[in-house]
């Protein structure tokens, strides 16, 4: 779904402090290109390569320049700017909106907004927020926890015990990010996992029902979002023929175009796998630091096997 002007007024764009001056009924206008543009050149009358598909930002420079023009030319420049079909126009520094601007905006059903922010700050923040808002997003079925800074998505068939295992991890000091439904966004820093607003910080545990985790276990037991580092796939113990027994070739899965390591853990009824998951996460961190236990042991074995002309040392 393409972004629309309304998204710039939502909670994720609150820091822009935008107020609508006109065109409140046209906030569903799409933003075809999630980027910003300062239309200085277009306002001088040069329209080639005008980035009309982006959010337009005007500051003191544009407005002061227009004041040097006569009223007819000024009105004409605004008319042509809006006629290009821009998504919306934002004025920085709470600058006054000249009537000819509003007239041109209304004629093209284009929203005009204002903010107290200075132009450079507004342009930077708006560009970043548009990037965030346009980031590819995917909702997956799985529970996400933060284990000492390592973001883990637990996935597996319904009833395998994702939430119960997560609860065990939280009791051992992890934080809950999302229970059962995890929203993933692809950002420049990687995949960011978060929960869906309506059920945030709640868990459902079979037999008990819905729990509010921060009330039960304290504020440190939850996190709003976390970068995803690994996926833990839980499979029924009887169907786990392909479980990795050595760990030489860590499996990778691609989510939204990002490769994420994945391990598969067999779960038998009643078996506590929280320690296994903790060990897997710490082992992942160890690998990041350059220590690969499986590789080092294998190296050691190969060395001892090849020493002395192929005879095994015992």
């Amino acid at each position, binding site marked *: 779904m393409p972004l629309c002007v309304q998204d710039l007024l939502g909670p994720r764009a609150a820091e822009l402090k935008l107020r609508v001056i006109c065109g409140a009924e046209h906030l569903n206008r799409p933003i075809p290109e999630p980027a910003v543009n300062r239309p200085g050149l277009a306002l001088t009358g040069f329209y080639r390569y005008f980035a009309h598909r982006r959010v337009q930002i005007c500051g003191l420079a544009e407005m002061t320049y227009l004041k040097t023009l006569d009223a007819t030319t000024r009105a004409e420049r605004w008319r042509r700017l809006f006629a290009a079909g821009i998504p919306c126009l934002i004025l920085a520094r709470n600058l006054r909106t000249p009537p000819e601007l509003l007239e041109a905006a209304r004629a093209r059903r284009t929203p005009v907004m204002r903010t107290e922010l200075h132009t450079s700050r507004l342009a930077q923040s708006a560009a970043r927020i548009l990037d965030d808002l346009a980031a590819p997003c995917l909702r997956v079925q799985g529970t996400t926890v933060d284990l000492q800074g390592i973001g883990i998505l637990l996935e597996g068939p319904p009833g395998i015990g994702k939430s119960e295992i997560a609860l065990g991890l939280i009791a051992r000091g992890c934080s809950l990010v999302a229970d059962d439904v995890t929203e993933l966004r692809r950002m420049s820093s990687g995949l960011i996992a978060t929960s869906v607003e309506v059920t945030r910080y709640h868990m*459902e545990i079979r037999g008990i029902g819905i729990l509010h985790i921060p009330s039960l276990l304290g504020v440190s037991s939850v996190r709003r979002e976390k970068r995803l580092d690994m996926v833990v796939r839980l499979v029924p113990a009887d169907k786990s023929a392909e479980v990795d027994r050595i760990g030489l070739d860590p499996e990778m899965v691609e989510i939204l175009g990002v490769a994420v390591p994945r391990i598969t853990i067999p779960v038998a009824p009643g078996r506590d796998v929280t320690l296994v998951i903790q060990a897997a996460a710490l082992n992942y961190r160890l690998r990041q630091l350059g220590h690969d236990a499986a590789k080092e042991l294998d190296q050691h074995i190969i060395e001892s096997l090849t020493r002395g002309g192929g005879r095994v040392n015992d």
Partner: protein
Amino acid sequence: MSTTERKSSTTIGREAIREVVVKNPLGIHARPAALLVRTASAFRSEVTLEKGGQIVSAKSIMGVLTLAGHPGSKMRIRAEGPDAEKAVAAVADLFEKGFYE
């Protein structure tokens, strides 16, 4: 949607789909969600609910709640597996009866 591979080769049975409307006055709050999940979980098929492009497992309370099924909203029930048709019929029946509210 899940990051696990689709095991289409091992899935026996068929697919059933039905469109429904939330009829009860409060929408799908906790109680109807629990009833829905309990009903869907009784079937072997994989049962999902879709609303506005979001797909969740109909066997997950949190999943069903995140759909925010307000009164009058449209949803699509989809089941895949050996008892797909029965599963869809049972879940659709709950919507039809307004979750007995």
